[in-house]
């Protein structure tokens, strides 16, 4: 039903009705979620997103309209609406899109075993097994295990002649354990996702994956919270990923820069981080979420944001690229067809350095080793650069060695300060993605990848209980 032919028909319709240029997006996404909660199948749910979105430009005004119904009447209504919005919008301001070369291409993730053709019982049994085994561990009072299976097919055609089809499949398992020790309860969760088919689920021992999480929860519940204050910190791959994505990535998004809402505005060419830091955003990278083209049909190549500490550029859509006098970087993305695009990150990470991980601890008499497993995520105010993250159970560093575990660790700081204070970057690059969540902005969630090498920063504020 969702085909390039339909997209071309809609494109023809919108141009015939008076649009000077247009982008038509079609999408069909299916998501299956199996959740076992403390020994009981909490849900087996399947949801589908289907529909079309049309962006029309008339006299410099731009309108976006969508419909989840694909009958002729609904399509025409969406097309007319996009045009009528564009006409009104033109009275309030004109928009110019940076030119792009038309591209015709399709990208498909290889799927050896289709997750949706695997018998429901086999999937349920796997999740049940992991969940019930977890509950047998002494001290684990509650556990949630989930499997997520996804396929997202997008078609983009533009009046400039681009025709893109992207078909991505992903699978993953998440596990969250709640441990009790006396009157204290603590939770630790983690998830692992793969881009591809069910073969990735079959290959891995998920009981071991869950057991490691349970063991960490059992240790964390007996741990103290760290004394609040400023620390020297060794930061693991996952926390580096979170930190860069939230604290720096959002500030480098071109729409925020244009709006004057980013602390990085007007700073291209300036030193914004330690010279050990190089940050990139790449559409296709091992371990990440594949974004070969964005939702304007622009190729997503590797974009260098920071090179040896110097700000080199921003992430852009076609219109923000025009405003900033830059090339479109292929970062215009939408959660689904019910949303117009925003400038978003794809796979945002720091390039590795040349230190060995263990060398980062040398000379730290008192500090903290910030660990990502069990991290809840983070938030940033990109206009002033303040960030905060809730991270996983971590270790206090004493005399150059990780020592006791601490829980409830929350770090905060200012992005530019934190990155300026980096004095060592390790060689171990690791990037991950997730089919259970993603990055939120403007009410939309998109899948992203993030990560980097271990690094050390001289100054980070740690809160705690």
């Amino acid at each position, binding site marked *: *039903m969702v085909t390039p032919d339909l997209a071309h028909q809609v494109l023809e319709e919108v141009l015939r009705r008076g649009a000077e240029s247009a982008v038509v997006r079609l999408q069909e996404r299916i998501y299956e979620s199996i959740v076992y909660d*403390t020994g*009981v*199948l909490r*849900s*087996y749910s*399947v*949801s*589908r*997103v*289907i529909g079309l*979105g049309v962006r029309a430009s008339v006299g410099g005004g*731009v309108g*976006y*309209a969508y419909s*989840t*119904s*694909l*009958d002729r009447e*609904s399509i025409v209504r*969406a097309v007319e609406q996009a045009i009528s*919005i564009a006409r*009104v919008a033109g009275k*309030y301001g004109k928009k110019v899109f940076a030119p792009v070369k038309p591209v015709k291409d399709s990208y498909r993730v290889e799927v050896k075993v289709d997750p949706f053709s695997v*018998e429901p019982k086999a999937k*349920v049994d796997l999740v049940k097994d992991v969940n019930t085994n977890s509950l047998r561990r002494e001290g684990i009072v*509650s556990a*949630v295990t989930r499997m997520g299976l996804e396929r997202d097919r997008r078609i983009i055609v533009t009046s400039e002649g681009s025709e893109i089809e992207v078909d991505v499949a992903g699978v993953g398992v998440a596990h969250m354990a709640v441990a*009790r020790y006396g009157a204290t*309860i*603590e*939770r630790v969760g983690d998830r692992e996702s793969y881009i591809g088919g069910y073969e990735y689920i079959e290959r891995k021992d998920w009981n071991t994956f869950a057991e490691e999480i349970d063991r960490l929860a059992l240790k964390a519940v007996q741990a103290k*919270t760290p004394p*609040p*204050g400023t620390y020297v910190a060794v930061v693991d791959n996952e926390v580096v990923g979170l930190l860069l994505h939230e604290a720096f990535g959002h500030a480098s998004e071109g729409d925020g820069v*244009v*709006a*004057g*809402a980013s602390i990085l505005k007007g700073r291209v060419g300036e030193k914004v981080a330690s010279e050990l830091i190089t940050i990139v955003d790449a559409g296709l990278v091992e371990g990440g979420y594949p974004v070969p083209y964005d939702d304007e049909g622009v190729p997503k190549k590797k974009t260098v944001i920071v090179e040896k500490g110097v700000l080199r550029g921003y992430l852009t859509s076609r219109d923000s690229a025009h405003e900033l006098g830059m090339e479109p970087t292929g970062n215009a993305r939408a959660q689904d067809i019910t*949303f*117009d695009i925003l400038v978003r990150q794809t796979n945002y990470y720091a390039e590795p350095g040349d230190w060995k991980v263990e060398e980062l601890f040398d000379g730290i008499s008192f500090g903290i080793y910030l660990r990502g497993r069990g991290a*809840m995520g983070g*938030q940033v*105010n990109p*206009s*002033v650069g*303040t*960030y*905060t*993250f*809730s991270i996983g159970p971590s270790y206090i560093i004493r005399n150059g060695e990780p020592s006791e575990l601490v829980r*409830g660790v*929350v770090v*905060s*700081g200012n992005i530019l300060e934190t990155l300026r204070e980096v004095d060592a970057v390790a060689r171990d690059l690791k990037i991950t993605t997730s089919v259970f969540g993603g990055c939120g902005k403007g009410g939309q969630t998109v899948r992203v990848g993030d990560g980097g090498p271990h690094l050390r920063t001289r100054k980070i*504020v*740690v*809160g*705690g*209980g």
Partner: protein
Amino acid sequence: MIGELVERGIKAGSKYGVSEIEVYAVRRVDTDIVGTVRGIERISSGQRVSVGVRVVVGKKVTVQGGFISKVDDVDSIVETAVKVARTLPEDPQWVSLPRKLGKTHVEGVLDPRVRNPEIEYFLEVAKQLLGRARELDRRAFTSTVSMGMSTIERAIGNNYGEAHLDESTEFDVFINVKAVEGGEESGYYYSYVAPTLHRFDPEQLVARATEVAVKTLGARRIETGNYELILIPRVFAGVIQSLIVPAISADSVQKGRSPLKGRVGSQVLSERVTVVDDGTYPGLTGTKSFDDEGVPTRRKVVFGKGVLEGFLYDSYTASIDGKESTGNAFRQAPFAPPSPWVTNIIVEPGSGELSDIVRDVKRGVVIYSTIGEWLSNPVSGLLNATVTNAIYVENGEEKFPVRGVVISGNIYELLRQPGLTFSGTVESFGRFMLPAVYIPRVTLAGK
């Protein structure tokens, strides 16, 4: 149209021989406007029709659904759901879908100006919000405005009774004002979220955002230590949402993920704290005539003078505890499984103005905004929030702005402190109506 989808789904269920079936259909029409310093950036509009079906075969249950591209999609959703349900293990705790559906009369949830938006009117308002901050203070400007007008039609029914329908609107405005002076920058987000335009005052919205952005210019960290804390209503709401709301859901309690388990009837919070969940209160966005299972909404006291009176239930968790649903079934999407969640949260006010409370502060901080409070841990009750806009107060006088410090502590200890005080005036936004709160002693992590 959505009523027909519900009937069609239930009919399809009986054809496939299900034990029980519930069909929930939602049609949403949204119009969104985004403006920045450059002017109006983006206008979008569209409609989506979603259907979720819950199919029960014996005690085997599945929830399936999604966006509907044509009417007979409902038949195929039911057909697939039945096939899947038959292969699932039984849920020993399953009793039944709710047998008594109904509606409560609610008011203040529908505004024709939001339902049929005159786009040029809202564009003019957006333009006003974009230009006004600079007029109010030359150091300030509006960096973004986003505005959303939504109409939500819902229909739900199951094999035990006829379908119920309702309709509501929602109007959201978010404004971000930045202030810049002598190399210092600050920013402040403010919002209006309600079913109607009745209380919407664009001038007051932009004035408030500008005032806080400007007065928090040049903010700095303060020393780590204990301080008196005042949280304005929005900040207090964020804390309740992150820590208390998950803990009063019967699902968290039954699964051992709430520190309130086994504490019904005991004094959990200060006697000054009364918290009510009320899905019928006029003019809040959680106000609906029935919950996401079709059970009529109602008012219930969660904490009465600090005593925990009970939890929030949907029909599934209620039957596990041998109770009735409290009308709190909530779905994150029409096609997601329901679980108990708050409708609207109302905290009873104290007395006196916020300014009087500030006047009595010896050494404290008034918090206007935080980030990351949602990362706090509702399982342990540990609060963590990073301050983005605040003012340090000494002997009742505002001294200087503060940011970048982290508020930490256990929420149940903080809200039990002697001397805890609420302001006499409340603010309403979204699903919340509540006062500002004064907490005598809180740890801030700073320098």
